[in-house]
C-alpha cells in the first residue's frame, strides 16, 4: 500500500486529489445557477412589464398630470388621469389597517415572546399562522357581509355599503400575524443576558419588556411594521370587494373609495383592448405601486440585517 502511495507521489500525483475533470458536475452547477437566476429574471420581468407600457402612457399623459391632479375618470368620454384619489384611497385604508395592526401585532408579539408559557405558545402561535393563511378573498367577503352589515351599520347608520372602514379593519387583522411573527423573531434574538441584567437591578417583567426587550429589538420591530404597511398597500381582494370601486378624494372612512390595487384589478378584469390608453393606465398605476412597495421592502430588509448583525 505504502509503495503505491510512494509511487504516485513520485509521479507527482496526489492520490487524494481528483484527477479527471468532471463535466457532469459543471453541468449540474450550471443548471442550479440557472434556477437561482430565475428570481432575478422575475424581478427583471416585473420591471420590464410595468415600465414599457407606463412609458407609453406617460408619452400621452404628462407625469405631472398623473401625479398631481385629483380626478381619476378613465372610463369617461373625456378621461382624466390624476392618480391622487387612488393614492388617497390606499392611504386612508392603510392608515386604518396599520392603526389596528401595529398595537395589536406588537402586543401579541410581546405576550408570545415574554409572557406566554410554552404550552400556551404552542397553541397560540399556530392559531395566528392559520389567520395568516386565510385567503384574502375570504377576508373581503367577511368585511362586506359581516363587519359592514353587523358591526359598523349599527354604530354608523349612514355608512355606505362599500366603505373604507370595514376594509381597513379587516386588513389590519390580516396583517397582525405578519407584524407579530417578525417582531417576535426580533425579540427572541435579544440575548437573555440583557433581560437578566435588568431583573437583577429589580425591574419588573413589564419594565423589562418595554424598556429592555422592545428597544433592543427595535430595528426588527420597525422592519415588521414597514413590511406590514407594504402588505397593506399591496393588498387587493379585500379592498376590491369591501371598499367599492369609486375613486373618491376624501378622508371619510365611512364612504367607499378605490385604491391603486383595486383599480388595477377592476380595469384588468374587464376586457380592455391592448394598446389603449386605459390598458396602459393599469401599468402606470402598477408602476407606482411597485415603486412604493419596493422602497418599503428595501427599508425593511435593511433594518432586519441591522438587528441580525447586532446580535450575532
Amino acid at each position, binding site marked *: 500500500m505504502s509503495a503505491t502511495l510512494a509511487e504516485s507521489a513520485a509521479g507527482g500525483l496526489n492520490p487524494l486529489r481528483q484527477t479527471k475533470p468532471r463535466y457532469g458536475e459543471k453541468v449540474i452547477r450550471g*443548471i*442550479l445557477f440557472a434556477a437561482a437566476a430565475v428570481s432575478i429574471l422575475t424581478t427583471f*420581468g416585473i420591471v420590464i412589464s410595468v415600465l414599457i407600457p407606463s412609458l407609453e402612457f406617460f408619452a400621452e399623459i404628462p407625469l405631472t398630470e398623473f401625479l398631481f391632479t385629483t380626478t381619476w375618470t378613465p372610463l369617461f368620454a373625456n378621461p382624466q388621469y390624476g392618480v391622487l384619489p387612488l393614492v388617497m384611497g390606499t392611504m386612508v385604508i392603510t392608515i386604518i389597517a396599520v392603526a389596528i395592526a401595529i398595537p395589536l*401585532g406588537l402586543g401579541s408579539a410581546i405576550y408570545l415572546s415574554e409572557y406566554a408559557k410554552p404550552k400556551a405558545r404552542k397553541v397560540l402561535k399556530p392559531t*395566528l399562522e392559520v389567520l395568516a393563511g386565510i385567503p*384574502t378573498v375570504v377576508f373581503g367577503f367577511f368585511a362586506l357581509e359581516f363587519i359592514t352589515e353587523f358591526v359598523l351599520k349599527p354604530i354608523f347608520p349612514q355608512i355606505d355599503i362599500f366603505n373604507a372602514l370595514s376594509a381597513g379593519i379587516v386588513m389590519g387583522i390580516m396583517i397582525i400575524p405578519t407584524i407579530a411573527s417578525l417582531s417576535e423573531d426580533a425579540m427572541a434574538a435579544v440575548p437573555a443576558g440583557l433581560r437578566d441584567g435588568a431583573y437583577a437591578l429589580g425591574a419588573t417583567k413589564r419594565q423589562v419588556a418595554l424598556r429592555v426587550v422592545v428597544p433592543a429589538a427595535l430595528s426588527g420591530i420597525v422592519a415588521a411594521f414597514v413590511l406590514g404597511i407594504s402588505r397593506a*398597500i399591496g393588498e387587493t381582494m379585500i379592498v376590491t370587494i369591501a371598499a367599492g370601486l369609486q375613486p373618491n378624494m376624501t378622508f371619510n372612512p365611512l364612504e367607499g373609495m378605490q385604491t391603486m390595487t383595486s383599480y388595477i384589478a377592476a380595469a384588468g378584469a374587464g376586457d380592455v383592448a391592448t394598446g389603449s390608453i386605459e390598458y396602459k393606465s393599469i401599468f402606470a398605476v402598477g408602476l407606482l405601486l411597485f415603486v412604493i412597495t419596493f422602497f418599503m421592502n428595501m427599508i425593511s430588509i435593511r433594518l432586519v440585517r441591522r438587528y441580525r448583525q447586532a446580535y450575532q
Partner: protein
Amino acid sequence: MTTTLIPPADPRQVDLAGKGQPLADKTFRWILFVCLAVGVVFLGVLLAYVTIKGWPRLTPTLWENMPSLRRPEQAGAQSAITGTLWVIGFTALFALPIGFLGAVYMEEYANPSSRFTRFVEINIQNLAAVPSIVYGILGLAIFARALALGQTVITAGLTLALLVLPVIIVSTREALRAVPQNIRHGSLALGATLWQTTWRQTMPAAVPGMATGTILALSRAIGEAAPLLLLGAVTFISFNPTGPFSAYTTLPIQIYNWTKESREEFQILASATIVLLLVILLAMNAVAILIRNRTQKRW
C-alpha cells in the same frame, strides 16, 4: 442574628422579576393578552359565520354541479374545483424544481460573501413582499400577451409559480441549513463530489423541511385571487378545463364572482364555497404541521 440563605433546589425556578407596581404589571399583561385574543376571536367569528351561513349549501351539489347565474339554488363549484387542481398542478410543476434547485445553489454552491449571492438574496426577499397583483401584471404582459399564451391554465400556473417561488426557496434553504455540516464533510471525505453529497446526503435529510415549505407555498397559491383577476379567470366558466390551454376559473375567483351578485342565495353559496376552500387549506396546513412535528430531528 445571622440568617442562613437556603439555596433553591432548582435555580432556574427562581423568579428574578421584581415585584414592584403589581397593579400596573397585571394590567399590562392583560392588555397584551387582549391584543392576542382579538386576532384569535376574529378568526373564530369568521369561521363560525361562514360555516353557519354556508351550512344549507354544504351538500354534494356544491362539488357535483356547475356554477349557474340563473339558478343559484342548484349551482355548484365543480369547474372551480377542477380549475384549481389544474392551475395548482402547473404551479407545482414549474415552481418546485426551480425553487428546490435554486435553493440548493444558494445554500450549497454559491459563495455566501460574493456580491452576486447577496444580490440574489435581497432580490428574493423583495420578491416575497411584492404585491400579488403586480405578479398579475407580469403574467398579463409577458405570459398572456407577449408569449401569446392567452388567458389559460398555463398562464395562471406560470404566474402563480413565480409568486410562490420565494416562499419555496426560503423554506428549502432553511431546511438545507438545518442539516449539520458533519454529514456533508463525511460524505466529501469519502470521495463523493459536491453534487453526490448534495443529492444523496443533504437533500434527503432536508426532505421534511422542504415538504413543509412546499405545502405552505401551494396553499398560498390555492387561496390567491388577485393576480388571476388580470388573467381571465373572472369570465363565467361552467365547464372543467380540458388541458393546459383551456380557459379556467378557481375557487377564490368563484367566491369573488358570487360575492359580487346581490341576491342572498349567492352569498350563501359563496359562504359554502369558502368553507370548502378553508377545509382544503386547513387540511394542508395540518399535514404540514404533522410532517414538521413527526420528523423534527435533533442532530
